[in-house]
């Protein structure tokens, strides 16, 4: 397991987890907002958070586990320092998306859904980012880039500043 998580995330702490859960527990159908909040705080939903969520929301651990494992966005392991998503949708396929996907996996040294051995980057596939007239599209640390081909991706990754992530996407 990676100990070195992304610099913008807090290290695991049950107290912080309980505080995060409590902040979202009062709403209707709170489980998904709670899990989003935990992931925003820690970068992933630690398995140690599952019983805490279950207890606070009066659910079974199986319920929480079921939801946590259903949604592709929710991770149970820490992400790499940088997060890259490559769109695999048809609109991006039509303008070179297959080649870009192949380049991303080979140059980053991981398959989709995986993290590079050195923990530097997590690579995910995504089905559509809504940028379908300006594909191929990728995101790097939450920021979207259009018209990205292999050389553009290399440039983006070499110049990306992990401390300058796009924080507009607070999804909790």
């Amino acid at each position: 397991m990676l100990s070195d998580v992304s610099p913008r995330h807090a290290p695991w702490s049950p107290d912080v987890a309980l505080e995060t859960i409590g902040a979202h527990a009062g709403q209707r159908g709170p489980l998904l907002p709670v899990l989003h909040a935990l992931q925003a705080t820690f970068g992933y939903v630690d398995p140690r958070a599952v019983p805490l969520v279950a207890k606070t929301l009066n659910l079974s651990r199986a319920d929480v586990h079921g939801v946590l494992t259903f949604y592709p966005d929710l991770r149970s392991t820490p992400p790499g320092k940088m997060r890259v998503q490559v769109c695999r949708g048809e609109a991006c396929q039509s303008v070179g998306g297959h080649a870009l996907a192949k380049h991303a996996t080979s140059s980053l040294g991981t398959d989709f859904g995986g993290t590079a051995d050195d923990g530097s980057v997590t690579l995910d596939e995504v089905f559509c980012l809504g940028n379908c007239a300006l594909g191929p599209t990728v995101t790097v640390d939450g920021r979207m880039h259009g018209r990205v081909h292999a050389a553009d991706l290399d440039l983006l990754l070499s110049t990306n500043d992990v401390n300058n992530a796009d924080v507009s996407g607070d999804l909790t």
Partner: protein
Amino acid sequence: MTTVYVPRDSSARSVGADQVVAAIELEAARLGAPVEVVRNGSRGMMWLEPLVEVVSARGRVAYGPVTPDDVAGLFAAGFLDGDAHELGQGLTDQIPWLAEQDRLTFSRVGVIDPLSTQDYLSHGGLFALRRALTMTPQQICDEVTQSGLRGRGGAGFPVGVKWRTVLDAPGSPKFVTCNADEGDSGTFADRMLMEGDPFMLIEGMVIAGIAVDAHEGFIYIRSEYPDAVATMRAAIETAYQAGWLGSRILGSEHGFDLEIRVGAGAYICGEETAMLESLEGKRGVVRAKPPLPAIEGLFGKPTVVNNVLSLASVLVVLAHGAQFYRDFGVGHSRGTQVFQLAGNVARGGIVETAFGITLGQMLEKFGGGTISGRPVRAVQVGGPLGAYLPPAQFDLPLDYEVFAEAGAMIGHGGIVVFDDTVNMAVQARFAMEFCATESCGKCTPCRVGAVRGVEVIDRIVAGQQTAANVVLLQDLCELMTDGSLCAMGGLTPMPVRSVLQHFPEDLDRPEGARP
């Protein structure tokens, strides 16, 4: 002070709009030129993004696509006075691509500052809501029904009929939910509306609340749209402050509370019952229907589930009357559809036009051929579950019923263009692969059928008993269509069958051929 518009739309940002703003502000400061930059939504001419507009004495003048390196030259050429430059596109409103559309739902997108209440009001905002406040719920439902407005999410169910069902259903509280889980590749109209005119969606939700006697609403936005989430959240906060949401809307007896919920990467949550499950905090597994969500929806209560564009289009209906809206369109497809031209297309973007335009007209008049310059081989209409159509079918008018008869669908209005380098066997396989990845797993035809579909197509492509496996694939498609619980498994065969029908040469592999 000269006003310069540069979009805040995430698509415009993806090709450098923020950097262009920084360059404009820097150059203006260097020259001591008084410039105010306003971040608008996008006009939807994506190939011109970042599109910079300058408010001149003649009107708004457009320049694009602008890079930061162009900025000094634009200043030197006098773009602040709307003077000529090689990137100049003339007066924005007179650009033919834009001028020839029927921008009803998208009338404000790209025109206004999305979060300015003043801009919203001065461009017709709240007109529909004020009118709705003078009407009874039944009258609102009737007017929406008379307009012929059908759900823009893909299924095309009459919006007014759905509202009337919720209004008449026993139970309390009732809910209004907006499906903003726009997962189809090739579609981005919901995103652009939420980023470019968020108050329109809020107003539509409030009107739906009045029409069905609901006081609570949720907008379910996919996590892939962080900018839309941020813009909608900011707009909701502003709307509360302005009295457009909350306990006494515009001083009336009506109250309505609205909140945003964010998805988590599951395509299936765009299916309405899966979305309701997700809103309840559960796995996004589809429900069997009946009961319809209108009778037993969110938390088991009567619930409106409408797409972003459906709710926004209601404003056009109420502001201008049912007849005005009905007068656009053909047959049972009334009004306008916000089409999205995407993929390998020279001039992609938002084309809002009356139903009835042919696919070919859409591609020629607006699309302008492929960006690669190669001939068009196929067009996928209606997202990943829509058919691939060859040029021989380009005379089809964009009309729900005509498309259905041709084994295709309009869906949410996405049109993805492919040139002649596309391998249609790969696209057919992808349809099955996508279904296998995204299936919620509840019903067997979808969960297992999609996996088997990938395997059968792999055998066909490898030249193993090609003829027999094509028959098997057709059988599988029939079973998935007839036996699946929802549109995910039920429509995945549509693109596959369209490849079998229109592009059989890509699957006609000689015995023992290698992929």
